[in-house]
């Protein structure tokens, strides 16, 4: 049952931060529903996510299994190795979804990523996956051809 729940949560979830947030929101919401506790204050984005889930999904939870299910989900999340994506700009949800869909389409499997903002890259991106870092940024290209660029600039100064 947990596999099915996890699969539903992962639908349209692309980043590790997004996954953690969604699980936390869902947990808070279910606690408030099942134990008549005060309802957590949720923003529009969170409410939209909760509304997107089918009623049959919520019916799988009860007072007895709620905590064990979420303990299992949290354990699964902690074992996820994300793909770190360094970008020179801050992304919005739309860009995140586009990147996520591209990654899933390219690799054909579920890979969660984490976006890290690094303006020093100038343009392009760099990625890190399972401890290996690859740089495809403009900064790297400039560094590789630093001497060449400097000599051209010196030519202009003359």
């Amino acid at each position, binding site marked *: 049952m947990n596999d099915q729940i996890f699969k539903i949560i992962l639908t349209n979830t692309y980043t590790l931060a997004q996954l953690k947030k969604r699980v936390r929101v869902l947990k808070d919401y279910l606690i408030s529903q099942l134990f008549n506790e005060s309802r957590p204050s949720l923003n529009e984005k969170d409410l939209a996510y909760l509304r997107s889930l089918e009623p049959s999904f919520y019916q799988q939870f009860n007072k007895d299994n709620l905590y064990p299910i979420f303990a299992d989900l949290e354990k699964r999340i902690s074992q996820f190795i994300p793909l770190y994506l360094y970008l020179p700009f801050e992304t919005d949800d739309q860009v995140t979804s586009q990147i996520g869909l591209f990654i899933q389409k390219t690799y054909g499997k579920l890979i969660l990523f984490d976006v890290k903002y690094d303006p020093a890259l100038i343009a392009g991106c760099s990625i890190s996956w399972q401890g*290996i870092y690859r740089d495809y940024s403009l900064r790297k290209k400039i560094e590789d051809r630093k001497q060449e660029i400097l000599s051209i600039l010196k030519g202009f100064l003359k």
Partner: protein
Amino acid sequence: MKLTDQSEIGYVYQSQDFLIRLNGLPTVQINDLVENESGGIGWVNTLMEDYVEVLMLNEGQIIPGQLFKKLPYKLGVSAGKFLLGRAINPLGVPIDGRGLLTKTKDVTVVNLEQTAPGIESRQFITKQFETGITIIDSLLPLGKGQRELVLGDAHSGKTSFLVDLIVNQRGKNTVCIYASIGKPIASVRDLIDVLKANQALSYTVVIAASSTEPAPLIFLTPKTALALAEYFQKQGLDVLVILDDLGIHAKVHREISLLGGRAPGRESYPGDIFYQHARLMERAGNFRSEFGGASITAIPVMELNLTDFASFIPTNLMAMTDGHLLFRSNLYNLGQRPAIDLSQSVTRVGRQTQDRISNLISLRIRQILSQAEELQTISRFSAELPPQTQLVLKQKKMIDEILKQASLTFIPKHIQSILLGLVFTSFIKEKDEEYFTKEKSSLIKMISNSPQMQGIVQAQMTSDNQFIQHLEQAIPSIINQPGGNNP
């Protein structure tokens, strides 16, 4: 930090003081180095199934999620003759404010962590390590390649003895390496000044990590010292390595291990503390010509707590060295310099390197000292002592005076033998111990100037009796010199 096309990286997921744990770094090995973007250098110390334990070698803020890149080189230090006369930290960074170590880019880098050379590379210790200190060269001789522990109370003159060891190596083609492990920076500065004032810095390398440095850096100090010692030894130079002090080193290792969650053992030291020290000690020795042909003489130092040398670390160190010199503060306060307790000190290798006459004279001296020890107790109850007992007690007093030696003085080995030999001649009837107290330096000068005494030194003698006979005949040559008759 400069990341290349493809770099190996890890992210901090836990940090505690100087110890951090990283995710990632798939092919990292022990002793690799990692660096973060603010220049913080970490040393990979432990590999676990799902994380890597790193010890930070410099200060800096560590935050979870911070990126560390694996560096292309292992823990090492640049080695070369350019290090002579310089003070560096355990990573080879100069700390004496005299700028770059070398301008040449092509330098040898030696790895700090190296396995000690095996038995096939070693040879019997046959040459004496001359210190110019009578009590050592005559009664507790050291061999080139020996490991001799120096242990003693605080304020018992250990440091001045160590300085003497270095200063007296002048002109002997020996490289001295002094590793100051977790000592106050002021004491390191003082030591450098003393060495400089005595022209001893030109053949010495000082490696220091002061008490304010991060614990992992202090921990690496003796490793750097021995890595450099091995470098110079392979160049065919005899090396003297002083590790001051391994008690602090053990405490630092305990701190690192406890922080890393290792199980504490006796006195809370980790289980591998013996291994850590023994691994260092066995890097010293006398090596065959195919392996450089020179020697590494190691002098580890340990300060004792209330003269308790039966505790864990001192007994460990005694077990892994070829003897020990025990310094006592009460002897120091009585004016004995160096304040070595002869009866409790041991040398296991040095005697085989001594020449025959020195060895026989040393044996006689030790016999006299042990006899006098027994007779001294009896003499307290008797007003009139037999002449033989009186002679032994007088000889003991004279020996004590001969063995006293001021700091920063050098007495050549042949003069030491003659001085100690005089105790068994008629010289003792004419002079008393006060003569030695007041006139020792002029006596040494007279011996050096006497052609007859020089003849004794050059003559090939086979027994101590023959040596003493010749000495007896040469006494007038000293006494007849100006000032000789009238001390």
